[in-house]
């Protein structure tokens, strides 16, 4: 690092940026998913059905249910956050989840592979799948939207080939054609039967992702590529490598979610994870990450994921139809996006 010393005498200093008084709206947007989560939780308590004076929404079983139900889309949303901060998108993740769940089941049941080789193979497959999409997108300068749309088709097609369009049921036991019983732990709860294992996987993955995004050079590069790709390139940031890496991360996340899916439901099917990519994108956007790239937060994504799950849960507890649940989700996505757009315009970044 060469250092530049400039000796200076009196000179009119360029005035500092006017101290920006905190825009309350900006604060709301910064913590929008956390605020949303609190609002949804309060709403859940108020509108929750009660049984014997107990608030059903706060019942430990119910809460465990919420965080278990969101763990797969949560894992995917964590990976998606990286991609979206680079101003990209990955539509293939739901299909890769399906492919991974099918491969997990068939490797253990039909292939006779052990647990560890199966998990490693599936994770590597996810990484490679994502990296291939990233490579195609950077090498041929294609929009990630179209490349991962193709990836979605490819992964579903592969899943159908591997599964022969059948459910592959996972039976447990020792010996060929059976999965090791320990794999079933993904559908269980730990700590006195309170915390779902799937949720633990989600939270651990989220914690690692948070550290990577906020404290490592790679994380900084992810923000830089999304913030101004040209500037990043000229500063010596390996832009293509960063882009390929973030798609490898979503591939990894989708594969991890696929393994969790197979473990929770004890089968693999080519239709697993249908539409998960959209739920994950919604969670990321509600979490405050900008689709224009350059800004975003992992904590926001986690909160956004749980918020969507809690919302669905309240509506279910009150026997509200799935149709209304979809409409409520739609309203929240629009609200989150409108808030972000308002702040962008105020900060002069808007379009």
């Amino acid at each position, binding site marked *: 690092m*060469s250092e*530049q010393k400039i000796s200076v005498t009196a000179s009119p*200093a*360029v005035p500092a940026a006017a101290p920006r008084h905190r825009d309350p709206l900006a604060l709301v947007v910064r913590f929008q998913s956390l605020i949303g989560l609190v609002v949804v939780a309060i709403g859940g308590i108020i509108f929750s059905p009660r049984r014997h004076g107990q608030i059903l929404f706060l019942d430990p079983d119910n809460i465990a249910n919420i965080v278990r139900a969101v763990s797969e889309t949560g894992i995917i949303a964590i990976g998606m956050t990286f991609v979206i901060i680079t101003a990209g998108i990955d539509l293939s993740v739901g299909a890769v989840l399906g492919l991974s769940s099918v491969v997990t089941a068939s490797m253990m049941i039909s292939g006779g592979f052990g647990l560890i080789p199966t998990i490693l193979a599936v994770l590597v497959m996810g990484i490679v799948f994502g990296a291939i999409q990233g490579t195609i997108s950077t090498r041929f300068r294609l929009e990630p939207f179209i490349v991962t749309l193709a990836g979605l088709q490819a992964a579903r097609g592969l899943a159908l080939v591997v599964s022969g369009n059948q459910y592959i049921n996972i039976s447990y036991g020792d010996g060929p054609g059976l999965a090791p019983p320990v794999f079933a732990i993904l559908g269980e709860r730990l700590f006195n039967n309170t915390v779902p294992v799937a949720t633990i996987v989600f939270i651990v993955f989220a914690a690692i992702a948070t550290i990577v995004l906020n*404290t490592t050079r790679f994380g*900084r590069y992810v923000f830089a590529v999304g913030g*101004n790709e040209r500037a*990043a390139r*000229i500063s010596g940031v390996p832009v293509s490598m960063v882009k390929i890496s973030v798609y490898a991360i979503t591939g990894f996340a989708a594969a991890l979610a696929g393994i969790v899916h197979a473990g929770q439901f004890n089968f693999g099917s080519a239709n697993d994870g249908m539409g998960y990519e959209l739920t994950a994108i919604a969670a990321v956007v509600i979490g405050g990450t900008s689709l224009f790239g350059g800004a975003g937060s992992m904590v926001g994504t986690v909160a956004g994921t749980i918020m969507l799950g809690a919302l669905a849960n309240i509506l279910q507890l009150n026997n509200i139809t799935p149709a209304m649940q979809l409409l409520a989700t739609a309203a929240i996505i629009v609200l989150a996006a409108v808030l972000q757009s308002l702040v962008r315009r*105020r900060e002069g970044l808007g379009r």
Partner: protein
Amino acid sequence: MSAPLLSVTGAVKRFGGVQALRGVDFDLKAGEIHALLGENGAGKSTLMNLLSGVYTPDEGTIHIDGKEVTFNNPREAQAAGIATIFQELDLVPTLDVAANLFLGRELMRPGGFLDVPAMRSEARKRLEAIELAIDPASMVANLSIGQRQVVAIVKALSYASRVLIMDEPTAALTVGEVDRLFDIMRKLAASGVGIVYISHRLEEVPQIADRVTVMRDGRVAGVTEPHAPQAELVRLLVGRPLDELYPERSTKAGRTLLSLRDASFRLAHESAGWQPPSGVSLDVKAGEIVGLAGIMGAGRTELLSALYGTGLSGRWEGEVAIDGQPVRLDSIRAARAAGIAFVTDDRRGSGLMLRMAVGLNLVMSVIRRISPFGLMSQRRQADAVKQSFGQFDIRPKNPDIAVGALSGGNQQKVVLAKEITGNPRLLLLDEPTRGVDVGAKGEIYARLRQLAAQGLGILVASSEMPELIGLCDRIVVLREGRNVAEFIGGVDEHTVLDAANGREA
């Protein structure tokens, strides 16, 4: 005599069939500020890209301290001590200042983690070294263009400290910011840095440069000293004497077209850095070209965009009248209905559809006229395109090529022609010749004067003082959104500057 810090000998560069450089010699001494002038397409960008390692020359050599070097990429040029600041500034707006300064060269703690405190304090040190009071933790998006410019310089110097190449650094700066930038450049030169300074602004050259190289058609047209008369520089630039850059004034002002009396624009929401018109009184008469002067942030652009309804949302208070009739100018639709046309300072961003053909851009302002019953009429469109081409000498004279492929000057002529085709009464122009070469400038000025003579009223905002003084009949000086002084055209530049800066004359 010792070898120059940097020298280029016989540089040739071809792109396909186009020869961008035809044997260029150029040299730079340590501690020298060397201005590189040339019209668009003269080859100065290509030369700059050779020096910064973006291109490699087809023929010719580059020497540093008398030793031959070759750069295969920008990093190699940086390693040799050459830093380039491109016009786009290459900062990441969503990251903070420290993160930008260290992008690609982050300071790390053991274990692979970023050392943010160390980067912040080091960034603070470097910014203070040039007395720039910027918080290293503030987001670049929140800085002014002038501040960003200096951050870019500090960043460039942090990895290459011998040669600094600056591509039109003053293009987006106000007069005050330009002065501060020049101070910083002089200090850098005094510390031994050689600076290549590329600019369109002839009037800046004597202020800052030690030596001037003028390029034309891929060759060096001449090397001269900075105090050479402007006419001499223009002759070198254009290749022929340019009789008069600014046309004769013909102040036959007619009726009052635009009249503002203590007019203010109330914003629906306050916005940092957007100075709304507050208590402006001014007139623009038919046949008149009125200039708007003022420092950056004085509200020149804001006044024009508020009149045209493209600014932030809000409403006018006080008297706003067009042709004697009070009007509510609260939307683009209302402005157009009142006969106002507007040419933005950002032609690439909001003036043109760059990928669309020239002809389609030209008819954009009269699309209703050429689409009876909502159906596009090919015949009327062709007529309108022909009419537009008659407004300005747009080269090449081909309506079917994408407007983005034209030179800056020709793009600007397309924007102007487009607006004039709609037959406005009042034309609002924001920085009408930004990034436009001298030849095209003269042509644009002459045409504007002709249009005024035909009865058009023109209100021009510009940060180029000589342009306002040379072109306009009257110059209104704005400060903090208010008109504070008015001068007739041809006034002394310093008088206007003093008024703009709030100093007593």
